[in-house]
């Protein structure tokens, strides 16, 4: 990965030192060649900081559209004002459009916040899906909290453009895969192509830590005749890791560490509440076990991903404040997906639990709105009616909350990032498509303007370059 060599020094300038814990960093990691830079042995909490900068936009008023604001609200004939990269105001027809705004007629169209995918592997399993691009699972040990997904992300993945233009996705969490019980750190990105990963990183987003239950870890490691080979092995390995992390955290807090451990840094940050646990877990009984494990060691699970059986324990998830990040209706492809039902989201909503529709898929990320619509429809047929506005929340504000970025994005409120989508019809209809997408107030996709359509480096000069996708 020569990329690392190029950007290593950039990250150092903006990092800050973890309070009271200036430790000796282990030398090496290619530092010898940076002769001009003093190798101050500091512990940097944020060594690869976001360099994302919004692109310029013009003051824009979308007038006369149906507005789903992301919180569940719906405004007929609404107006949305964007300026300086932010949402300035959202209102009904009475909201005046100040001078100097470009006016877009939204009649018959719909506005939502930018769609957010809490579970993507874009960049770490980039297209084309050749072995050389297989960077999502450090499947060499069942616990690898020391790896960071951002060090695998290829910012030229063609999938980013499809997610933007067909899916209206403006932010997403890129996760390590599920081969490992503890897969490593996730990274939250703005869906804006950049030369570097740092320039895609969502400013101020907390890290996540990927964990996985069930079949995948035990299959991968059991297949090598190493632990874990069973579900009980999964838990034993997890618990041992947490015991070690708790000890490390205690020493760290007391300033007694003699050696830094990347893996333990991440887990200790989870115990400190700085890193959010994003836990792949299909089965209801396993989720319940994980909830107890989290209590045993004093951490919180933010969301269970792929929670196809969440509907069986909707009450437990609600009581513990854990979101279920789910597909609409994937079913049956593996044993732990056998009890998936299309009513999962609706049953969770009916019980008052937090619902997020996720993709886990470079195709599915292009249609999160459609997946949410299908999940709602399944609920209606059993008498659970969720409003259009609440369904949009499943792919906007709820994932923003579970990523810790809801203060910045996820809904259309004054002062929030100008991340929004103008759809050419109701986004819950199969016939609708994003017409325009703004990210931080910058128009980055326009259905009618081929110049506002991103093309990755990979596609240049190859068949299909610049085509509609």
């Amino acid at each position, binding site marked *: 990965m020569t990329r690392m060599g190029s950007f290593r020094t950039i990250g150092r300038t903006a990092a800050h030192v973890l309070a009271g814990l200036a430790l000796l960093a282990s030398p090496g990691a290619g530092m010898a060649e940076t002769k001009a830079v003093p190798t101050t042995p500091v512990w940097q909490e944020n060594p690869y900081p976001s360099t994302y900068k919004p692109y310029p936009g013009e003051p824009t008023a979308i007038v006369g559209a149906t507005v789903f604001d992301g919180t569940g609200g719906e405004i007929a004939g609404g107006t949305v004002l964007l300026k300086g990269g932010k949402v300035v105001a959202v209102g009904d027809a009475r909201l005046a459009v100040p001078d100097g705004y470009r006016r877009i007629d939204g009649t018959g169209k719909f506005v939502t916040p930018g769609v957010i995918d809490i579970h993507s592997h874009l960049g770490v399993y980039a297209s084309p899906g050749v072995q050389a691009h297989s960077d999502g699972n450090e499947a060499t040990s069942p616990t690898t909290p020391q790896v960071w997904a951002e060090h695998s992300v290829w910012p030229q993945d063609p999938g980013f453009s499809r997610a933007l233009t067909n899916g209206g996705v403006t932010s997403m969490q890129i996760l390590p895969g599920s081969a490992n019980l503890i897969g490593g750190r996730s990274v939250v990105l703005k869906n804006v192509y950049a030369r570097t990963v740092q320039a895609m990183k969502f400013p101020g987003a907390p890290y996540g830590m990927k964990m996985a239950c069930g079949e*995948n870890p035990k299959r991968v490691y059991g297949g090598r005749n190493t632990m874990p080979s069973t579900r009980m092995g999964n838990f034993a390995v997890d618990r041992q890791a947490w015991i070690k992390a708790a000890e490390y955290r205690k020493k760290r807090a007391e300033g007694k560490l003699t050696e830094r451990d990347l893996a333990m840094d991440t887990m200790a940050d989870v115990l400190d509440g700085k890193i959010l646990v994003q836990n792949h877990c299909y089965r209801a009984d396993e989720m319940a076990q994980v909830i107890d494990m989290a209590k045993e060691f004093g951490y919180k699970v933010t969301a269970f991903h792929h929670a196809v059986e969440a509907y069986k324990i909707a009450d437990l998830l609600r009581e513990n404040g854990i979101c279920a990040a789910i597909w609409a209706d994937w079913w*049956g492809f593996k044993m732990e997906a056998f009890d998936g039902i299309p009513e999962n989201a609706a049953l969770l909503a009916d019980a008052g639990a937090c619902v997020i529709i996720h993709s886990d898929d470079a*195709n599915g990320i292009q249609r999160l709105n459609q997946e949410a619509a299908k999940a709602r429809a399944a609920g209606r047929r059993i008498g659970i009616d969720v409003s259009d506005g609440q369904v949009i929340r499943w792919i906007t504000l709820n994932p923003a909350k579970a990523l810790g970025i809801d203060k910045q994005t996820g809904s259309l409120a004054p002062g929030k990032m100008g991340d929004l989508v103008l759809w050419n019809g109701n986004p819950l209809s199969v016939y609708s498509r994003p017409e325009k997408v703004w990210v931080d107030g910058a128009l980055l996709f326009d*259905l009618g303007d081929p110049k506002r359509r991103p093309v990755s480096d990979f*596609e240049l000069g190859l068949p299909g370059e610049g085509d509609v996708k």
Partner: protein
Amino acid sequence: MKRASLLLAALLLAGTALPAHAADAADTPATSPSGDFAVTGATIAIGDGSAPISGGAVLVRGGKIVAAGSDVAIPAGIPVIDGTGKWVTPGLVTAMTDLGLVDVGAVDESNDSYGGTARFSAGLDVSLAIDNDAPPVAVSRAGGITRAGVAPVAANAIFAGQGAVIDLAQNGPGTVQPRAFQLVELGERGADLAGGSRVAAQALLRNALREARELSQHKPGKDSKNAAAAEPAQPGDALLTRVDAAALIPVVAGKQPLFVHVERAADIRSLLALGREFPALRLVIVGAGEGWRVANEIAAAKVPVLASALADLPGTFETLAATQSNVGRMTAAGVKVALGSFYDNDQPRYAPQFAGNLVGLSRVPGATGLSWGQALAAITSIPADILGQGAVFGSLKPGLAADLVLWDGDPLELSSAPVTIFIDGRPQSLVNHQSRLRQRYRHPGEEGLPKAYE
């Protein structure tokens, strides 16, 4: 986690299943045992590419369609289903699935779609293993799929084996037609199976066709001294087993279609050249991710296509030019295109959503989609036709099997689902594993007795 299976399944489709929306047995309408009934007052979509007809009717007698459309006379005494507010379509047809071969894809013991160490390839006949009780069959049925092609997955050779056509009727015989087509891999996957190159795959294919032809031309000669010797033997340098070579005889003779999985434009051209070299072959292209680039050539060769509707990523180096406009552009060029499914979680029940997306695409500047009628045809009559069953099922034309789906709204819309399904005029249960779970967990709490007693 799904990567490996995605790669594997990218070769083919995995069919599995549909959500069990519709209500359960209570919705099954009363019909006479002979399959005589009518549906009136519904929006009727014939499935032949035409636009839907509002306020129409369908008349069924003896399990066959008698008439469908706006001017259908309903004889006295025929049981009538009030279709007010409903839509009626033909049962959906998915041309390539693994329905009946798989219970749970990742559970090897339950998966008969391929066998990596099997000794045969072209000679494999999936019809002998199809299980109509496999859970994905019931789930797919509840999503409106009434007929399907079932294909094996190539595992140890470029030839996957012989696919079958099934109906999805409950307790049904399942197999409508065994040995309906042969499937061969000639793209990246074929190259891998052939020893590492497309060149090798092409050589293997041509050799196989030659061996089959020679086998078919073998006449018991004077050296036949006994009955056993009358059985044609493969020559000593033959690469195919006799079973595999024999299975390819109907392919060479043009009696059995040859489904060929290729994606990129160059591979499609190469395949069309093969068709000129062996004019008797009845080729069907499976995949054709870059088909739009050679659409005129495919149309001129009159080769039909089973394509993925929404593949728009350069997922491999053979789909660099993938676009959702692929199906629309090929259709516009005159190619007969049905929607196929090519990834493990693209199950047959998603066909209406895929078709609906292509209708939505027609509103995108620079893109090419399908009309509503074309989109429905791409998941009903066209796949039936490609399976060689166009005169048997796939539309609401008179004389065809009365495979009907009543929907609670526009069938291609995300909010809609089947409410009543008939196959051969017989009402079908919509109960399945998912619908039973849904009932049990409508309220998650346990009261009085554990959930296991509900």
